[in-house]
């Protein structure tokens, strides 16, 4: 079950899950990705978004994105 939609996310990168009581912190890049996921964006769109927004190579961003999504899966956020 995807619990992204129930998460409360603030601008500082603090994330709270009201159903489980768990909280998380993300950095700016992590927040960027989470917000795009909440908007229902696909992986390729998020990658493009990272490239447009940040000073980063495609190779690095792609690897980091995959890694971050796997981390979200391990927390059962997606």
């Amino acid at each position, binding site marked *: 079950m995807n619990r992204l939609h129930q998460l409360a996310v603030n601008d500082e990168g603090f*994330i709270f899950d009201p159903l489980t009581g*768990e*909280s*998380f*912190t*993300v*950095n*700016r*890049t*992590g927040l*960027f*990705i*989470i917000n795009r996921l909440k908007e229902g964006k696909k992986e390729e769109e998020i990658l493009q978004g*990272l490239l*447009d*927004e*940040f*000073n*980063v190579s495609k190779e*690095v*961003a792609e690897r*980091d*994105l995959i*890694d*971050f999504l*796997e*981390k*979200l899966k*391990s*927390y059962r*956020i997606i």
Partner: protein
Amino acid sequence: MKKVYEKPVIVKVETGFMNKFGESPLYQRKVRTDIDGVSIDELVKKYGSPLFVISEKKLREKYRNIYNAFASRYPNVQFGWSYKTNYLKAVCAVLHQEGAIAEVVSGFEYEKARKLGIEGKDIIFNGPHKRLEDLEIAVKEGAKIHIDHFDEIIDLEKVADKLGKTVKVAIRLNMDTGIRPQWSRFGFNLETGQALDAVKRIAQSGKLILNGLHAHIGTFILDPNAYAKEVEKMVKFAYEIEDNFGFKIEYIDIGGGLPSKNKLKGTYLPPDIAVPPVDEYAEKIIDALYSNLRPGDFPKLILETGRAIVDEAEYLITTVFASKRLPDGRKAYICDAGVNLLFTAFWYKFNVEIDREVYGVNEPSVLYGPLCMNIDIIDDGILLPPLERGTRLIFSPVGAYNNTQWMQFIEYRPNIVMIMEDGTVEVVREREDLTDIERRERLPEKLKIR
């Protein structure tokens, strides 16, 4: 303008995650850009990665510091360098220059000390496996032989007969000093009377002269009182021997075992807090000597301190080769050095430093070595910020027991350099290649691939 990129990180907030020192573990990290003023980058560019780096300065400092703790309290102190702790020639040579004699535990180590230029009389020969031919050489050359078992007494009597001379020997004792596990497999047990039997046996034959006592109660001993007990028992036994058998015990060798500033796995306190300062050991040991020695008697006190001298003088630089995400969410890094080079990773949790400033929140990470083997783990629970491929990590202290117990397994062993006191860098052991590994192999003619 585009924003500065930082690797995306998410960390679960656990209650109690803040440590009691008030600093957030999310941002703690240790950075090291050089060793003795030589940059990590330069070292790796020139000598490759992984790379062992020994600091001559630190090695001498540690030796002097520990030696002086004892020599400033007692007039007759001698250190014996425990070869098995690190028998690189350069390391041994530095410590011999500082005044240590050699302490060896096999025919091989004995040969090594001799080859380096150490005279037999300056070699302590310990260990349970001294072959007859080793003993013969050691007797001829006047080494200090510390007998481990009754069979060795018999062997030495044979050698004495053969060479037609009486031989000065010492015996190794084992005893209860409160340290568990008790090292009872080496030498003769004091409490059961076995040690006394050994002395009787030596006295009977008249071919051997007992002039020293030796013991080594264990390693990484965190309780200075254990040494006080050891010293008390040894001195009392020495007088029992002198009074009943007419031997003069000229020296008491209390072995090694002082801890280094390393962190044992499973301990909570950092080593700066958990490991008592060397002065505390020296104080307890010398106090115990003075309160048990007879007035005017100052037998030589020998120490065979290994890890406490060399451990902190050596570092291992390794490079992050790749990273991956484990199914449990932890970040894993594959480094180019593993348990093949760091044998002590099985019981130590090393200090890990990063060669550059890294931005981003720490996350629970695992450090793996390069081996295709499940056991190849350097650290299975460390908080690290997200690391790029090619980032260098510096592990320390690694000077004790790694350059002797490392294995050529799957990978070659790398360069070892020493940063000299004048800031120059010397290769003290070259990286291996295939010829080193295959030099002793023979392929039977009919198996050759054509």
